[in-house]
């Protein structure tokens, strides 16, 4: 499989192609080639390519992220285009209606950007500093652990903590999962789960 040729040939499979395809079905037939032509110079000449995998289902399609910003000092990178990776043995450059729209997921208006805190009984979130949030969470965890940790059940050493629950996330990396496992288990937590059950 020749990477360059495949990649160029796959322009219409991209996110823009999805919207174009939908509009095309409504009678805007010329839009798709126009969109493809419009993104071509950006993609090949000015963007940086990064390999990644789609974060949605478990097929784990390969994707290529095209970003502006060359990683030089003080240059911020921003992903401008995402398409299927033609080298990937499973998806061979294709993406589904979800994967084709990943760019809108990355730049969703409703992404979280700052730590927020809602006080008991309050009707709103307030922006707080990371230090405030992390100090307070650590304090709440320790208070509860010290209060409710069960070291012994009769003669048996049980060293468990069952009044705090922890949920791991099915889209985080294995490395995140391992770090989460280490920290949560070291505290003796047993109310611990992930999306595998749901």
């Amino acid at each position, binding site marked *: 499989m020749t990477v360059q040729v495949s990649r160029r040939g796959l322009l219409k499979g991209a996110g823009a192609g999805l*919207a174009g395809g*939908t509009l095309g079905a409504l009678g805007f037939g010329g839009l798709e080639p126009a969109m493809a032509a419009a993104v071509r110079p950006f993609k090949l000449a000015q963007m940086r390519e990064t390999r*990644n*995998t*789609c974060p*949605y*289902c*478990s*097929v*784990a*399609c390969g994707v290529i*992220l095209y970003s502006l910003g060359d990683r030089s000092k003080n240059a911020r990178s921003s*992903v401008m285009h995402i398409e299927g990776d033609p080298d990937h043995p*499973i998806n061979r450059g*294709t*993406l589904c*209606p*979800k994967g084709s*729209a990943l760019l809108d*997921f*990355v730049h*969703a208006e409703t*992404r*979280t950007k700052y730590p927020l*805190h809602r006080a*008991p*009984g309050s009707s709103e979130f307030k922006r707080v500093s*990371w230090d405030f*949030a*992390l100090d307070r*969470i*650590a304090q709440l965890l320790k208070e509860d652990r010290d209060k409710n940790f069960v*070291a012994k*059940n009769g003669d*048996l050493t049980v*060293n*468990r903590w069952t009044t*705090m*629950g*922890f949920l791991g996330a*099915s*889209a*985080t*990396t294995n490395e995140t*999962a*391992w*770090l989460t*496992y280490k*920290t*949560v288990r*070291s505290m*003796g937590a047993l*109310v*611990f*789960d*992930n*999306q*595998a*059950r*749901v």
Partner: protein
Amino acid sequence: MTNLWMDIKHADVITVMGGNAAEAHPCGFKWVVEAKAHNNAKLIVVDPRFTRTASVADLYCPIRQGTDIAFLSGVAKYLLDNDKLQHRYVSAYTNAGYVVREGYDFQDGLFTGYDADKRDYDKTTWDYEIGPDGYAVVDETMQHPRCVMQLLKKHLAIYTPEMVERICGSPKETFLKVCEMMATTASPEKSMASLYALGWTHHSKGSQNIRSMCIVQTLLGNIGVLGGGMQALRGHSNIQGLTDIGLMSNLIPGYLNIPVEKEPDYASYMAKRQFKPLRPGQTSYWQNYNKFFVSFQKAMWGDKATKENDWAYDYLPKLDVPTYDVLRGFELAKQGKMTGYVIQGFNPLLSFPNRAKMTEAFSKMKFIVVMDPLKTETARFWENHGEYNDVDPTKIQTEVFELPTTLFVEEEGSLSNSSRWLQWHWQAQEAPGECRSDIEIMSEIFLRVRNAYKKDGGAFPDAIVNLKWDYAIAESPTPTELARELNGYTLAPTPDLNGTIIPAGKQVDGFAQLKDDGTTACGCWIYSGCYTEKGNMMARRDNTDPGDRGIAPNWAFAWPANRRVLYNRASCDPEGRPWSEKKKLIEWNGKQWIGFDVPDYGVTVAPDKGVGPFILNQEGVARLWTRGLMRDGPFPAHYEPFESPMANLAFPRIKGAPASRIFKDDLADLGDAKEFPYAATSYRLTEHFHGWTKHARINAILQPEAFVEISEELAKEKGIAKGSWVRVWSKRGSLKAKALVTKRIKPLICDGKPVHVVGIPQHWGFMGLTKKGWHPNSLTPVVGDANTETPEFKAWLVNIEPTTPPSDAVA
């Protein structure tokens, strides 16, 4: 998946049942299309709805949700009655001839040893007869009245095609066509791939749904071969990894177990985990349990885990109940017994059953922490969103933190897909605002807790203050550092299998080098080999595929040991010759096993040594009957969903699944068919991924608004017009949505009466860019599978009526 996505192209028959791969796993489903186009494969779809997968099927058979065991037991009976087995495979590679001890029985829907009060079994009799030589007794003729084959025939006798039609609503003629099509793969040249997903797991007997197909696939000789297998299509990009690494109440990474109270020390823990071969000469990975466990403890606590302190065995918490799963966790929260929850990338308000119970549970906790890249409903459970989240914030005293996290484009690391591939990905942009990675957030919280214990002391600080934490930047361990821990490394010079000394501080090549003497550390033994001295094996991008096997062995890393097809020894006959030359995976060359894949067997173990091909099992063979390993029975049996439109025709006295756990209040919250006559189910649409994509503009445009699907017949009966508003309600809650009146759903005729199906997609909430709506969890019951506690999201009861639009909607 026992096999992998590309391998589906080798299948001769593909059955999609308990899933809808064309819509939920579209790019994986392309391999089904490939098999149809280039391997002349036949596609069978069994589903209550005529899905998009069904629309390209060669054979579509409707089924009432929650009756898969009856259907597949009927298929297995057909195979036995019509002698459609792969005979040598069944006799050499399964426990069909194993003799079961006296006392085991199955009567009126219950296995021996049932305790109705505990909803549990005493499983003593669920085992083999052990002979004087200490091994299981085997009758190779399979004629012994207590051998598994004879018990199976007896067990399946009731599942006639007529009974299948009465229970499942699947027309007898169509059902028999399914049987005939599947039966063609009994030939050693042919194979069937079974593709399933949450359509099988979301039931009070989900594990036994899967077991039923395992029995069919084993009788047909379809496990371990190209184009065969049990293909679990996992729901999320790294749900496989999170499960592998054991982020569950009762697990240690690599499917080891957290100890229970009654195992007070390492010796008593290991006593229950000694691998005892059930047949002469049988070997297994599990004979190395102690090496995996000690290496895990060393990865956690380093030099604080010593032989003298039982490898820091006391640092692990001990369970007093089988598991603190989410259903139990939120039951405890509802009872006011939980202080808080830390929630990473998860939206439980819209993910766990019975939304009203979830809101009550959250409201009773002192605090919750939500770490997420999106503004979720869970983080706003206390916020009033009109009828979509009708709560009074002033009455909710829960303190809430919402911490912004990075997305996949802003981090590097590996994800494990359904094929068990660990694939590395790289960062492409900086995170917006003040987002931080989950690694940094968990590290920062942990270090603050650790410092407080170091400074002030408190309850059992040992396991916290001694946790191995030697990362270059304590607040920000790198994915590479963590991946190297997962792989495993030497702590002291230690010999490898050939006696060559590996110096201290080296990455191990694989789990075969792990030791139980404290000289190695390994976070997750099945991931060993992912980051060796050769570098990051997960980042490999060589897509060449020798022999066009659909394996690409040098792309990324597959666990275990970079093996792509599990149980691949079973792709050869007992003499070591491939069953099918066309589908050759490995073979015995007289000296060793060679081929396209890493052999799932001792590489130099000759075929005549009598070692069975299923080396994860003590028997070395595949199990048609599972001894005491499943909580709810060694064979699957048909049980109705906890909320069902009809009684159990097979076992009239049994309601629900006898060994499934259900809490008292949740039992009282079950409705009956008089009040709620319609059979509801939930599912995904191809344009959306759970609640995530409602935040993405294009997806929100493609599927902007919640709907429920009903048949034309039900619409007529209830006076519901196409596109009009309906109210759907259960004993637990109510929702409004637009009615999609469709030919895709037809009434099923079960025992002579119509059963109407109401289909409820699951993609709407009160955050994001779509119109606001409800998730089916407003309606679903809180009861889980007996083995996994996976909630019964796919089969419950509702009622439906025309209604007025929500206050913010236009009719």
